């Protein structure tokens, strides 16, 4: 047989099989997260959770009629500009009926405008900035706690459980960091504490010695950081080296084992962090997911369960809507009552935020984040 004939046969067989596939209708769900760039590994963890939700749904059978669900994964690189581009790409795809994402508040916020204009439901698994849900977009939903829950919980823990009176606050000047630090400051003052200083730093900067020397001279008992772990690691490391004796605390952005690796376990011991929800390992409903996830991808990421949960809510809404229609899917999410998620029951308030979502307080011990207690709004 000549080479040409072989190629011809190969090509025609491809079309032949495609023809069969086409008989089954497909409907798509979008998922947006940073898959490259500095926060890629968190985004990938979230995406793997979403992927498993889609696979689980397809295993159960068609969501409605004879449709197969497919995932359209897009990469926002933790970059707001890229996030808007990707949101427009998802809107332009008529097969996509809803989206979960993004990870960073600074990406979720501008993208939410695009989804709102495109009348497409957006569920964020991880963005905690409270401002996003106050824009009045009926297309926006969130299944995690906001910084309105997280930061006051942290402030109460610092004031009541740790008994600190004088603190210093540092933030990284991002939507997330400033939001978290500002709410923390307000709550800590309301509890009668003293905020000695509130400074900003630039992401990507390395030398914080001048700022820390100033903070040291003020003598705080605790330093709260609104930001993500790379800067937290540098801050703590430089502070310990210059002999700044203070406790350290941060939000979900610092909750990553890389933090401990960068600071080295002995120096990292005693750092406090709040994290959305409790450890999925400790929730009976999540056990099945966690086991399957860890068997497949290794240790579960901080946001993998949230990716899974958000995608499941979206798929349930598609199932109930029963057609390829963005408006119908959106209406079904709005109408959803007491959805039994693996991380707890979900009900959305009028802004689209899940009601009663708690945060957990953790402490670094022996190179790990150890769960201390749950804190509600």
């Amino acid at each position, binding site marked *: 047989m000549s080479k040409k004939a072989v190629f011809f046969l190969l090509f025609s067989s491809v079309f032949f099989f495609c023809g069969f596939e086409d008989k089954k209708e497909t409907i798509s769900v979008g998922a947006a997260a940073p898959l490259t760039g500095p926060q890629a590994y968190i985004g990938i963890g979230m995406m793997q959770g979403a992927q498993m939700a889609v696979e689980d749904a397809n295993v159960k059978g068609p969501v409605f009629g004879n449709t197969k669900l497919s995932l359209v994964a897009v990469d926002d690189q933790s970059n707001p500009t890229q996030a808007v581009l990707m949101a427009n790409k998802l809107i332009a795809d008529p097969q996509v009926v809803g989206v979960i994402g993004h990870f960073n508040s600074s990406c979720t916020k501008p993208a939410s405008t695009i989804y709102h204009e495109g009348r497409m439901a957006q569920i964020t698994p991880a963005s905690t900035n409270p401002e996003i849900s106050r824009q009045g977009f009926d297309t926006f939903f969130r299944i995690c706690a906001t910084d309105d829950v997280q930061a006051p919980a942290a402030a109460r823990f610092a004031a009541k459980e740790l008994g600190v009176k004088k603190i210093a606050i540092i933030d990284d000047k991002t939507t997330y960091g400033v939001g978290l630090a500002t709410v923390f400051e307000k709550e800590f003052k309301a509890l009668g504490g003293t905020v000695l200083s509130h400074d900003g730093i630039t992401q990507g900067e*390395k030398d914080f010695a*001048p700022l820390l020397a100033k903070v040291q001279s003020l003598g705080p008992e605790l330093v709260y950081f609104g930001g993500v772990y790379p800067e937290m*690691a540098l801050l703590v490391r430089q502070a310990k080296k210059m002999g700044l004796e203070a406790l350290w605390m941060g939000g979900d952005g610092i909750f990553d084992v890389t933090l401990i690796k*960068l600071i080295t376990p002995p120096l990292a011991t005693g750092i406090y962090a709040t994290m959305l929800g409790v450890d999925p390992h400790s929730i009976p409903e999540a056990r099945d997911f966690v086991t399957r996830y860890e068997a497949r991808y290794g240790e579960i990421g901080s946001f993998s369960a949230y990716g899974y949960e958000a995608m499941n809510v979206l798929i349930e809404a598609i199932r109930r809507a029963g057609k390829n229609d963005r408006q119908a899917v959106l209406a079904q999410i709005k109408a959803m009552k007491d959805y039994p998620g693996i991380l707890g029951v979900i009900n959305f308030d009028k802004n689209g935020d899940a009601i009663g979502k708690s945060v957990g307080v953790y402490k670094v011990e022996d190179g790990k984040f150890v769960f201390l207690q749950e804190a509600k709004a």
Partner: protein
Amino acid sequence: MSAALNLFLNQLLNGLTIGMVYALIALGYTMVYGVIGLINFAHGEVFMVGAYLALTAIWLAASFFPGIPFGLTLLFLILFSMAGASILGALIEKIAYRPLRRSPKLTALITSIGVSFFLQNAVMLIYGSKEQSIPDIVPMTRLKIGAISVSLIQILIFSVSIGLMFFLTWFVKNTKTGKAMRAVSENPEAAQLVGISPNRIIAATFILGSALAAVGGSLFALNYGSINFHDGYLAGLKAFTAAVFGGIGSIPGAMVGGILLGVFEGLGAGYISSEWKDVFAFLLLGAVLLFKPSGIMGNNVSEKV
């Protein structure tokens, strides 16, 4: 001694530490500019590669010679990083800039930005996009000198940087290669007439500048304990500012510019606002360019018409 004075001296020390690193990088910018009139924007990336090479050297030392004293590891990592970065510098010059020697200046400038992107992404692909942690090989001892306490790593940064600056000054003044560098920088055609090969001298300049940046990168990595593939960008930008501030093309200018920039930034961040840290650096540059366009130590070269 009062607490305020104590704080001031500590802030001064912090500023001097980072200033030394800026100065080491700035030297590379200024030397290359002096010789071929090119702002080599890839130089910040050479600094970053130097930091990664230092990390690699620590890994190598730990796996092949476990338990050797930290002084030897230190020596090995600095030499390893210098050697690696020198090769990289020579390659960049040979592959990216030499073919463009007769093209307009802008072409080489844009090429240097391209080289910078290439190196950043190459390092990201090789070492990964996450922060890499640098093992603490230098003991965390602090020495009390009067009221200020200095860490061992800070002493190391001071002594190595100052030593290298003296070496470079001697090298440029007294060695044959150094004299040739000055000749090429003065007038490349005339230098060629007296038997100097500009290509060789330009390559030597790149090698020397890259080696200095690599030392800066190694010290930077040891001091801050974590490195990332995009660290070269900001550090390179600051060092470039320092070079222009000191007078681009002038070697003592780069040293003074780097140190002053570090101190200015440190005091600004410590006393006014850390949020505005970068603003201070660039404000300083703007002010100098406004009042003394050739920089504090630059020569006023009138444009030939």
